[in-house]
């Protein structure tokens, strides 16, 4: 699961260092990239991520994204 989430993120933006734990808070992910990651995750895992789940806590790291995806898979 982790590899798949990471691969999805890298496909959206290969230049971002996804090992960071402050992807949103640290300003690495801007809103456009965040929208693209959310929509890609929905597509790849065939899930619906509600808008309220799009918070810095859920997208600050790959691990937090994995946890989020697992909730909806």
């Amino acid at each position, binding site marked *: 699961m982790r590899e798949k989430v990471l691969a999805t993120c890298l496909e959206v933006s290969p230049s971002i260092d996804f090992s960071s734990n402050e992807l949103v808070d640290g300003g690495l992910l801007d*809103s456009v990239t965040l929208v693209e990651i959310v929509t890609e995750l929905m597509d790849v895992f065939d899930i619906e991520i509600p*808008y*309220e789940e799009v918070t810095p806590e859920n997208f600050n790291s790959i691990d937090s994204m994995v946890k989020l995806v*697992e*909730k909806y898979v």
Partner: protein
Amino acid sequence: MQSLIYKIRYLTDGILSLTLSYNTFFFLIFLFVFLCIYFLLRKQKAKQIWILFGSVVFYAWSGLAALFIVLATGSIVYLAARKMGSLYVGYEKEKEGLSPKEQTVLFMDYKKKAKKYLLTAMFLILAVWIYVKAGKLLELDSVATFSEWISGRGIIVPLGISYYSLSTIGYLLDVFWRKAKPEKNILKLFTVMTYFPHIVQGPISKYDSMLKQLSDLPQYDYKRVCFGLQLMLWGYIKKMIIADRLIIYTQAVFTSPEQFAGVEIFLAVVLCTIQLYADFSGCMDIVGGISQVMGIKLADNFRQPFFSKSATEFWTRWHITLGAWTKEYIYLPIAMNPKFVKYTKQLKKNGKAWHSSFMKAFVPLIAVWLFTGLWHGTGWDYIVWGLYWCILMTVAKEAKPIGDKIISLLKINTEKPYYQIWQSVRTCMIFAIGRMFTVTGALTGCAVLWKRLFAEHRLWTLFDGSLYSHGLDQKNFYVALLGIVIMLLVDIMHEKGKSIRQSIAAQPLPIRWIIYYGAMFAIVILGMYGPGYDASSFAYGAF
């Protein structure tokens, strides 16, 4: 005895007839008394109640009926937020022991119930707002009492309705999405909602942040108070020396554009852009300064917008809180809507990659810009204005690869100052062209402006003195130009990250006071208070 009663009545009527707008002397007296008592109060609760009292007095000045509508709206928001909050508390209790997936399913049930409260409250807020907007569109008179309204003499327009409607809807959505906790104390919510520095023309505050600040109001601090007063002074300079001066010329041109041509129109369009900036950002400095004096940080609404390199960047620096609101509550929810995402993916799978990319960029943007246009005004001019920005941004995004190719072919160094200056000039031009849609109040007026712009050049008006015969004489033109140059220099320093207030604070005492007195005298001597002066009119106060 009767004469005493008569005198008291006369005095009361006199005071009540005064205008309580940020740029009136009466407001400064109100603010002085308000702040003196504010700093005398030591307890948090007393300060909070005093802010509420001051805000209610300020608001009631615009009409008791309007105050009633605002407080009724506040009560609806409070009840809906509390109801949603209590539902979510129920969910938190029930979810214990369930797997994450079961929790998600359970939460959806609770969310459905919460949605009813959210939609009811939003419907009521929007109904009042749309009613006011429709009334303005039909050019109905604005009345102050319910009896006048019932008898059909006009509509009640609550002060700052467009601002508090957005803030309250944002707060309700935050509670619904569990991004904010519902406030338990209704008086605190009223205080934040009616807070007099932000209710008239923003900034559109996030109630969550304001509520937190209200719970931790700091005591008097000399440096903070000085900084706040300096910011207010700067705001008054921008508003009363620059904006109120420029509007004399621009209004003369835009009220009868058919009498002007060429350079006169060009100058009016450029000056009206500067006028709007000086007016609106000046007001933001005044209200930001008042809040700073009290120890409350309002959200920034301007960040040197005319130094933006693109139209997209411009809207992250101009009316920032409106842009942030539309992004958070319109753009992102649409862009991330699962059904919309599925639709665009389907297009991509069907081999329509460009179509899919266009829809992804265009649909959320058109929603944002139609809303922004209608928020500013209900006429076709504002709808076209919104479409103009939407098309511009979509084209900019879609054509970026082509633009990048041209730049590389022409070997243009985008890091060079000349290119960056060109980008800023281009942004200013884009904004000024956008202003032409709305500045005369109708699309036909905009067509006249374009027609007259190229009808004849009239360059001689710059030299034969006729430019100064439209209400703003030569001396006042020069004062306005000097003000614009100073405003530009200040913006350049801010852009370079320099704090002018810190630099002033570092000066020796006599120099500091020379600057303060200079600024105050400049406002007193050069501020516009002529016969046509209308102290109540801030450009964005009309929304």
